[in-house]
């Protein structure tokens, strides 16, 4: 489930709606902690709206955390009246990304509901709320439960290097539609790659030849994606989740808002630890060269 910015036929307390004067009166801090092979989610709810607090305390509504993992078909709701709660996601049930949507939901039919904090448009009005209907919406969190990649430069497992069996094709191809970025090397070049990859000193050379252009390609693709495409890739593409995480953590770059302003070529090289200096050093016998004319 994705929280969509939608309107309801009655006032709902949500950060994206103006139905209540204090639209931030409901929020849930969700943190994830590794718990062996599993992931523990810790929920800390805050609710300052008087009437909704009353409904939760009386049992007429509950905090509901809607969890969904599209990759494994996992879908579950956690219902609680507690402000603090933890829940362990088993690695047997989920993989990749888990969408977590917090709500306050009516547990029975509620007649004549009203709040002193309604926006002036609803002042003095009352509403009948059915069991199962949403009373408040919190911020969605997408928890990444895949194996973390610490360093894209070392044995990048978001890439899959394969051979092109069509010997007539002499160009490298890149495909970012799956869980990994597939780099398809020409028939004979694949054997050279396999042989050279056994020797760690050739890693920067190989990265400069294959990983850098592949990253430039996918970064340019990412710049063209809208929010919907980004959400889809979040679910379907493990490599996208990894790059997004590294960009956010190491480059302070949000893929949705900041990526378009970044130089793809520069970013691709930095993501892989800028292999060019080491690659040239290796190719030129370890000493490097300076100066000289270019023609």
């Amino acid at each position, binding site marked *: *489930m994705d929280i969509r910015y*939608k309107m309801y036929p009655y006032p709902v307390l949500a950060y994206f709606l103006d139905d209540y004067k204090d639209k931030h009166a409901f929020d849930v801090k969700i943190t994830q902690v590794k718990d062996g092979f599993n992931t523990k989610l810790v929920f800390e709810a805050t609710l300052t709206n008087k009437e909704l607090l009353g409904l939760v305390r009386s049992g007429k509504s509950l905090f*509901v955390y*809607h969890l*969904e993992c*599209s*990759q*494994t*078909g*996992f*879908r*579950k*709701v956690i*219902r609680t009246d507690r402000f603090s709660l933890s829940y362990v996601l088993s*690695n*047997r*049930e*989920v*993989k*990749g990304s888990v969408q977590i949507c917090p*709500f306050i*939901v009516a*547990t029975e039919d509620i007649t004549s509901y009203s709040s002193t904090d309604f926006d002036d448009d609803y002042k003095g009005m009352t509403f009948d709320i*059915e*069991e*199962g*209907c*949403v009373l408040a919406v919190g911020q969605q969190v997408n928890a990444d439960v895949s194996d973390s990649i610490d360093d894209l430069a070392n044995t990048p497992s978001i890439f*899959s*290097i*394969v*051979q*092109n*069996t*069509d010997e007539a094709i002499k160009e490298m*191809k890149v*495909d970012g539609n*799956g*869980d*990994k970025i*597939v780099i*398809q090397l020409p028939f004979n070049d694949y054997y050279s790659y396999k042989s050279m990859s056994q020797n760690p000193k050739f890693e920067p050379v190989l990265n400069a030849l294959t990983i850098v252009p592949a990253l430039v390609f996918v970064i340019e693709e990412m710049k063209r994606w809208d929010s919907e495409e980004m959400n*889809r890739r979040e*679910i*379907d593409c493990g490599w996208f989740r990894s790059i997004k995480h590294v960009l956010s953590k190491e480059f302070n770059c949000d893929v949705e808002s900041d990526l378009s302003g970044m130089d793809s070529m520069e970013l691709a090289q930095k993501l892989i630890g800028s292999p060019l200096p080491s690659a040239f050093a290796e190719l030129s016998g370890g000493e490097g060269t300076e100066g000289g004319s270019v023609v």
Partner: protein
Amino acid sequence: MMMPFLKTDDMNTVKSNVSSFADHFAEDDNTWLQKELGRNIFSDSKFPMPQVLLDMSNDVPDKTDPVNVQAVYNAFQFLSDSQASDERLWSALCLGPFWTYVQYRWKVRKNHSKENILQHYFFGFGARRSLTRNAMSRLWWTGRLTYDKTDSDPYHLTRFVTQNARFIVDILERNTANNPEVLRPFIQAVIDAQNRGIPVSSERMRDLEIYLDELGGIYILDCLPEQKIHDRILKKAEELAKKDEKATDTEDINK
């Protein structure tokens, strides 16, 4: 014998070169894989390979789904959901021990286009949809999503869903199918509608699924009692049937 799986690079090698390999998928067996790639691409998983005999006797292959879903889910029930969403596992089973079945069920000898191969031997769509499109994972996941452990006949919902290949797409490929407490009352309501003489075609099933989605826009379905979901769907099926009757009566009058 251990259950096979494919290493990611090997799987991606076959996938990336499907256009070159397409004609091989019409061959009697998979020995071409070793010849083309110069190595055995199947690795052993930690699980022993269960003995499964799939029904390939019907001239209409999708009629074998009810029996084959039960056979596969029973045999591979030990898999966790996380393991069962791994493309490397299912592509190995499709390319390996169930080579003949995939050809039979999806008429691959006649249609070995790149699209047909990617869809049924691998994960050719997004992560979730691929679970019900890959030839073997489809059988497992249909069983997994419809197996009703609360009933003395746990496959009663499975039999309904597999009576029509479109039902698997229309019912199980929606997010609402991921929660048995939503799926169970939905399917039961449709069964009850049929038992009351209301015909449920693929188009009608889609109408009811769309209605369930609309309900999901009003309620958190997972928080509703199953009976409420059941009653709303049954009522909708009855309303739509009455509409159809009126439309037929009007047509008759106009003739």
